[in-house]
């Protein structure tokens, strides 16, 4: 029995991969992502946090790209290339963890709102709608400012303000799943809340959740950089804090284009990669969209 389920699952993964490979944009995104993640992971093998140390900058201030400093230097003579490389770790880490937090909250509350009828579900839905209306960036700024800027609080600030759209998506999906006859059969056999939600609803919403998480990472990275730019951030080098530095030191008026252009391009590249991946996942996993794309 379980062997049969296993084979079926394996087959559906294979089918999914075959479908996904046909999406050129999605594959491009996936490759860019893989490169970015691998680079971030292997960074400690080559450099350490010393490259972000203000006093250890060896180059001239705001020097344009040269052989020694391929992407120029910042206001303290640090290499922009190495800072970008090291900073990618913070940006990606916060992006992934914030998206994960947002997904966990969104999934738990979304399933709860869809599964429990009556006042419990209504209250969860009401709270979700309330969070959905709040201007998320403004709320995240206030949260980060109050909790103080450490990596953990930035993750919390982003996660706590970005889950409601996931919760709504998951709730709608939960309602759809629970309307199917096999849930009724399961109930008749004596299944409880826990069994229904974890064994039937969760596996059914999981694919959509994957697509939604991928898109969520993209927006979490943008939010992180915005929070850092607006001055509430962990005091660690990230792409956002670098851009903050470029603004504070007047890189725009000094004509130091490399200091502004490069960190921003990194953000755009990674965010677009996540977005393309997420959209491709959505198209592959959502049958309704698939038929539309085929036409």
């Amino acid at each position, binding site marked *: 029995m379980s062997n049969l389920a296993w084979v079926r699952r394996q087959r559906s993964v294979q089918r999914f991969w075959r479908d996904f490979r046909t999406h050129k944009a999605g594959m491009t995104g996936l490759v860019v992502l893989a490169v970015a993640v691998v680079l971030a992971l292997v960074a400690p093998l080559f450099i350490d946090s010393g490259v972000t140390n203000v006093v250890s900058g060896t180059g001239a201030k705001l020097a344009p790209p040269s052989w020694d400093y391929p992407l120029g230097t910042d206001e303290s003579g640090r290499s922009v290339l190495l800072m970008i490389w090291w900073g990618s770790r913070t940006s990606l880490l916060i992006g992934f963890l914030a998206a994960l937090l947002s997904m966990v909250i969104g999934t738990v509350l979304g399933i709860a709102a869809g599964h429990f009828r009556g006042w419990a579900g209504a209250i969860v839905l009401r709270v979700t709608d309330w969070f959905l209306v709040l201007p998320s*960036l*403004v*709320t995240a700024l206030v949260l980060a400012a109050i909790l103080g800027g450490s990596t953990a609080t930035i993750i919390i600030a982003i996660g706590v303000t970005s889950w409601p759209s996931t919760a709504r998506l998951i709730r709608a999906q939960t309602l759809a799943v629970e309307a199917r006859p096999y849930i009724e059969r399961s109930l008749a056999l004596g299944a409880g809340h826990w069994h229904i939600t974890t064994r039937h609803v969760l596996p059914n919403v999981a694919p959509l959740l994957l697509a939604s998480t991928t898109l969520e990472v993209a927006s979490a990275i943008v939010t992180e950089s915005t929070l850092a730019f*607006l001055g509430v951030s962990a005091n660690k080098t990230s792409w956002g804090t670098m851009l903050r530095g470029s603004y504070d030191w007047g890189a*725009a008026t000094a004509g130091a284009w490399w200091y502004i252009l490069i960190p921003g391009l990194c953000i*755009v590249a990674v965010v677009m990669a996540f977005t393309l991946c997420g959209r491709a996942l959505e198209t592959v996993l959502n049958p309704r969209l698939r038929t539309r794309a085929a036409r």
Partner: protein
Amino acid sequence: MTVVIEAAPARHGLLRYAATKAGGALLSIAMVVVATFFLFRMLPGDPVRALAVGRNMTPEQLDLERARLGLDKSIPEQFLHFVGQTLRFDLGTSYEYKRPVLDLIGERIGPTLLLTGTALVLAVSLGIWQGARAGWKPGSRFDRFSTAISLVLWSVPTFWLGLLLLMVFAAGIGPIPGLFPTRGISSVDAPDGFGYVLDVAQHMVLPCLTLVAVVYAQYLLVMRSSVLDEVEQDYITTARAKGLKDDDIRRRHAVPNALLPTVTLVFMRIGFVVGGAVTVEAIFSWPGLGQLFYEAIRVPDFTLMQGTFLLITVSVILMNTLADVIYHVLDPRVRSV
């Protein structure tokens, strides 16, 4: 299975709907007030000490400050006091400016309305126009171009786009001279009358452009997909069968129907625009609410932060409620559900 046929009491139903929505909005606002109170009491350590950082204050002065803020009272008493003050629109006194927060907000609200209002009108018109054209012929070159543009703009952080524009058009780069001012709403030596209007307009170009670019992408995508939905409808086929011109079908049949979800979305996502406005105002030193909020965070001036946060969230909630009710009035399909 029983089929329930509901009588549609048109006027009466609308009033009841509006009342329910207004009640919901009041509840949301109450939740915002409560959340704000507890959020700002979560500040680590002694708020007065945190506020007094960098200022020379004796212990007596600190005690006096505590009594003035009501921090020597119990939490429930503080809460009632806070609610009473908020109901009387008393948002406290800013530490940084030594002035009532409400006065500061009053001064800053004009520039913000000017900037976001202009940007919204431009973004909505452009987004709807381009989205309608793109959705009408899915897969066309125009459609692919529009989708690509909006995907890129979607991925670009607002502040970075602002920085780029600042670098290229305000500071000037290479052969391009600085065309627009880098900061503020008007020059020091701005002339009166019409000259002043021109001066402000020149200052507004870059912030407005940034804001439009960031928000218009999502309007475009929504308009595109809702036109796409309409294209498949029977009435479009009927219109074609009648021999109407393609442009006429789009303009007079598809677009008006597709407009509804888009316009509602504009109101629904107003929180997103507010976030963009904060960023844009911070970069271009536009003397509006967003910049006030940004300064409050930089200092940090918690009374000012609390006041602006309350105002921003409450206005966003009101806009959303308004959108709900307008949607209900405009779209009979929602009413019958």
